């Protein structure tokens, strides 16, 4: 969805996507779309995790050994 105001154009759905990604990152979950884009750009040919597998791997890393220390 494109919205025009003050003579500029905004992609509302894009903005909503990045806002959601930012909020999720605050809770420790990196952006899946960015991960896919990163692999495509820098490691072409490498196997890409599915969204589900990515989420599981991130959760295990956050709460696994050596990860996820939060303060009192």
């Amino acid at each position, binding site marked *: 969805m494109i919205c025009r105001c003050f003579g500029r154009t905004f992609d509302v759905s894009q903005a909503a996507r990045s806002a959601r990604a*930012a909020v*999720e990152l*605050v809770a*420790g979950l990196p952006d899946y779309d960015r991960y896919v884009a990163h692999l495509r750009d820098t490691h072409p040919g490498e196997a890409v995790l599915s969204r589900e597998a990515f989420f599981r791997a991130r*959760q295990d890393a956050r709460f696994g050994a*050596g990860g996820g220390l939060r*303060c*009192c």
Partner: protein
Amino acid sequence: MKALWALVALLGAAALAVLATSRGETVNALWLVTAALCTYALAYRFYSLFIARRMLRLDAARPTPACVRNDGLDYVPTNKYVLFGHHFAAIAGAGPLVGPVLAAQMGFLPGTLWILVGVVFAGAVQDMLILFLSVRRDGRSLGDMIRTEMGPFAGIVASIGILAIMVILLAVLALVVVKALAGSPWGSFTVFATVPIALLMGLYGRYVRPGRVLEMSVIGFVLLMVSLWLGGAVAADPVWAARFTFSGVTWAFMLMAYGFVASVLPVWLILAPRDYLSTFLKIGTICALALGIAVVMPELRMPAVSRFVDGTGPVFAGSVFPFLFITIACGSVSGFHALVSSGTTPKMIGDEAQIRAIGYGAMLAESMVAIMALIAACVLEPGAYFAMNAPAALVGTTVEAASSTITGWGFPISAASLTQLAHDVGEHTILARAGGAPTLAVGMSRILSGALGGRALMAFWYHFAILFEALFILTTLDAGTRVARFMIQDLAGLAVPAWRRTESTLANVAATGLAVCAWGYFLYQGVVDPLGGINTLWPLFGISNQMLAAIALTLATVVLFKMKRQAYAAVAAAPAAWLAVCTLTAGWEKIFSPVPAIGFLSHAARFAAAMAEGRVMAPAKTAADMHQVLANDYVDCALTGLFMAVVVLMLGAGVACIFQALRDVRVTTHEDRHDLPLLRPNV
């Protein structure tokens, strides 16, 4: 520009002057907020810039681990503001909310000054330096860096210290929850409800809409609000209220069972969803409190300095030095942040120059949370504050006894107003609810109901605040138990390698059981303590937390010498020395003070004398209880001794490393050089 900063300095000084000179009349909380904000602005603009440019020479052109190792998973260059939020959510917790509330017994001024001075010169400096060290070392952890920079012995000593602080931290946080929920059906119901809510969120995020953290958190939040409303109905119904009324001891055992189960189960089922929910709720509530204070502009009813600066206070025993400086840990300086700053954040910084905003800046924000907690405690009538925080052994168990004792201390409060306050917040009693959470909740409900809903919504806001604190404390409890389990496996693995196998169920269950027993022991001891437990446990926690900060700052000092930047060593060495002096003095007094309320040994001696005469002293009811009290005193003594030994050993190791560095003409630190080929495999 210069004129503007001069204006900020003047405004801050004026606000501090108003606070410091107020005698006998109330002061508006906005003065406190103004003084804090001006201090933060000046410290950030000048001191952190000095550290960033002159001392550390942060280099925006130097590639960070996130750039070099970018894998889209662990190492990801992240937007500065998003990373600020991530880091802030990781460092902010119950600590900055509880400490300042306890310290309010001395009046608002001592706590305020320590929060402001401490954060500017110690806390924010520590967070920034450790973050810097970790970014320059591939995002490695504090323990790892101590091993490589200060040697394997120092590494093991630090690991033992970190495990001990985890145990005490979990015990004291669990105690805060017990104090808030014992005998409160409304609170108990809502906290129970969080378990099925988390399960539902976990299943949703696993099978229905995988990975949609925000969606499941919104669902969780809505259900949480429903349970909060239901909790009110439960508390109003005599049959259901009785079913959800539990004693402190019952709550202690339920928490232990919960901590064990939640940290053994797969993380996606309960631990992770709870973590998401509590992260968002935490940030939301902190913002709401800030807005509430700005809108309501409450008056501080607590005097600037109360008579309890002499060390006879009912909330915690001991005088301003050293006990104020260990009571307020998070919010001014917290060693725990050194663990967070060397965790995930250094792997996500895309530009070295941002270390200043993330490390120093986020800690200033955390400090503001501590200031708000102090405000929430000080907007209560002092009499009500003491009724909630003084142990029953001192003020009695009825509102009449409490009001006459506290009025006798010079803080007039009527029995009727204590009953009315309990009624307003939807509880049977508010007496002897030490631990910070209930006081903060009453303060917050005053402020938030002043902004929205008036008296009618006070009970709702009170239980909202209790729920919010209980939720993120329970999150710390299960995640912390898990972390402690890994630490135990790591340390035990030094002797018996089989312990290291984190995929082995037996090793997992055994290490988790050990972790729960360790904090459960201190929790139980705190719950049955007639002086409220917080009295004993909070100082132990404060000592261990500041001890860790002293260790982290010692590491930073050592590295500065190794980098040949010793001209600036005082920036890290001075707060390290101050924290070492505070923890060692406090530890010494906790062990050897002749006052039984402070010293473990003199307390034990009193009980030993009574036992020799065949008498039974409160809290003990039988001779076996007397033995237990004695044993607790000796365990507390040994633990304090361990903390002191860790500090002394680490300081010794630090001094030795400094002399070694001075003898060498070269730079001897172990920074990663990303312009050279990578030495380690990409893990």
